[in-house]
């Protein structure tokens, strides 16, 4: 059977229309179910940073804007959220330097029925800048001058693994930040930070 061209277009258009309605309806349904959940609202998270030997204190401010989410019902009910996420951080190495960084990317969060959360964030866009406490420059004539603002800038993408818990409407979390600095000395350099914090 060959449909006339006009009929084919009408049927195709109708299918798309109904499909759209179906999809829109599904989204609306999800929104209604999760209206009390925080996964659909932009949020800020503030954490205290340390390096992996619990030294070099710092602060990390995180902003997340959800772009989609899904709810799985049943005995293993969970909510999966995909968000755009941005970090602005600062840490202090008492011996040598302070550093500040900003990065952005996406994260995937899963919240289970017991309000336990798991996070994976990939932030491919990132920069870090260090500032050394006291720096001098010595030229070829061995003349010494003090440098006011000395340090280095790095391309610094980051991966974050985390876990959290929602309790009494308060979300607490623990994240592990793995940042890659490049170019650092001969190549790349891994920087690991632990973050403990709250959703604001």
């Amino acid at each position, binding site marked *: 059977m060959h449909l006339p061209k006009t009929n084919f277009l009408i049927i195709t258009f109708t299918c798309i229309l109904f499909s759209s309605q179906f999809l829109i309806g599904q989204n609306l349904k999800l929104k209604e179910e999760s209206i009390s959940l925080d996964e659909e609202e932009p949020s800020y998270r503030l954490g205290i940073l340390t390096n992996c030997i619990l030294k070099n204190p710092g602060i990390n401010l995180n902003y997340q804007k959800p772009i989609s989410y899904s709810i799985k019902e049943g005995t293993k009910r969970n909510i999966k959220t995909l968000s755009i996420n941005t970090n602005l951080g600062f840490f202090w190495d008492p011996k*040598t330097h302070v550093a500040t960084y900003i990065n952005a990317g996406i994260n995937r969060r899963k919240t289970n029925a017991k309000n336990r959360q798991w996070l994976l964030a990939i932030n491919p866009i990132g920069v870090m800048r260090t500032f050394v406490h006291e720096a001098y420059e010595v030229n070829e004539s061995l003349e010494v001058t003090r440098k006011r603002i000395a340090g280095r800038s790095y391309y610094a993408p980051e991966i974050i693994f985390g876990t959290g818990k929602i309790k009494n409407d308060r979300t607490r979390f623990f994240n592990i930040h793995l940042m890659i600095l490049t170019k650092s000395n*001969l190549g790349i350099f891994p920087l690991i930070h632990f973050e403990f914090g709250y959703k604001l």
Partner: protein
Amino acid sequence: MPAYVYGNASNNIFILTLHGGPGGNSLRLRNGQWNETLEEKYAMVYWDQRGSGMSQGNLNKENLNFREMKEDLKAMTALLKHKYGEDITLFLLGHSWGTMLGGGFLAEENNQDNFNGWISIASIYDWCNTIKDLVPAYTKIASEQIEAGNNTVYWNEILTLAADTDTTRCDDVRLNNEGPTATSILESQGIINNALGGFNGDFYLNNFITTTFNKAGTNDFLFNEFPFDDYDLSEKLSKIKIPSTVIHGKYDLNLALRTGQTYFELLGSKNKTFYTFDKSAHVPFHSETERTEEILIEFIEANK
């Protein structure tokens, strides 16, 4: 390149330390034992060399090499005089790789004029001769240990390895790599004292991942990217005329005692002393802390 200054600067005597590696960490030298007494009397300068410790940079073959590192040392000397005054008294102290850097630096131009003395601990002057010296050192110590009935299986393996080492190849580093294991076995037998010393807060305050990562990269790079001739000081050490003291562990299995003795013999100074530390391996200032302090204080007081 960070430099950390600790101690008593009131009498204007500074000891500029050169860590090992290459690629090591200056604060690893400051373990709170051997340097406590020294810091009471003098200012100790712990400097992370290029590509080492907590140093930051964008490095490649053009700027990470022996020549540039010697230039850094010249700049560090100028900086100390700028910050603390032209009238300060400077001593240079090198350990392991630091003795090659310091020796190479002092032998050039008039660099030694800025220093009142050179302290060389666990010395190295030429990588190829280091390999040659390690073979009889391992053979002797392994034979002694087998005769004494200590860890005979391990030391027999070492004898085989020593016999198998190709001393015509400067890159046969298997015996050098065996140093830490052999040293820890000697320490467990009580033949040498505390081999590595403790760690103190200063070391941990550094991001130890940073230092470990930098060491691996810089160490491999400096030995793999340049010909071994670049590191030969055999013809240069005779130019060093300032007072010198050389300390070497009898059981040093990273750099053999014979290597240290040759370093001492090659030095051009007429005022020089060699000390063998009988209960030490590669880090005599950790193994025989008090003796190190006594020798260094005596040397500095005599030449300040």
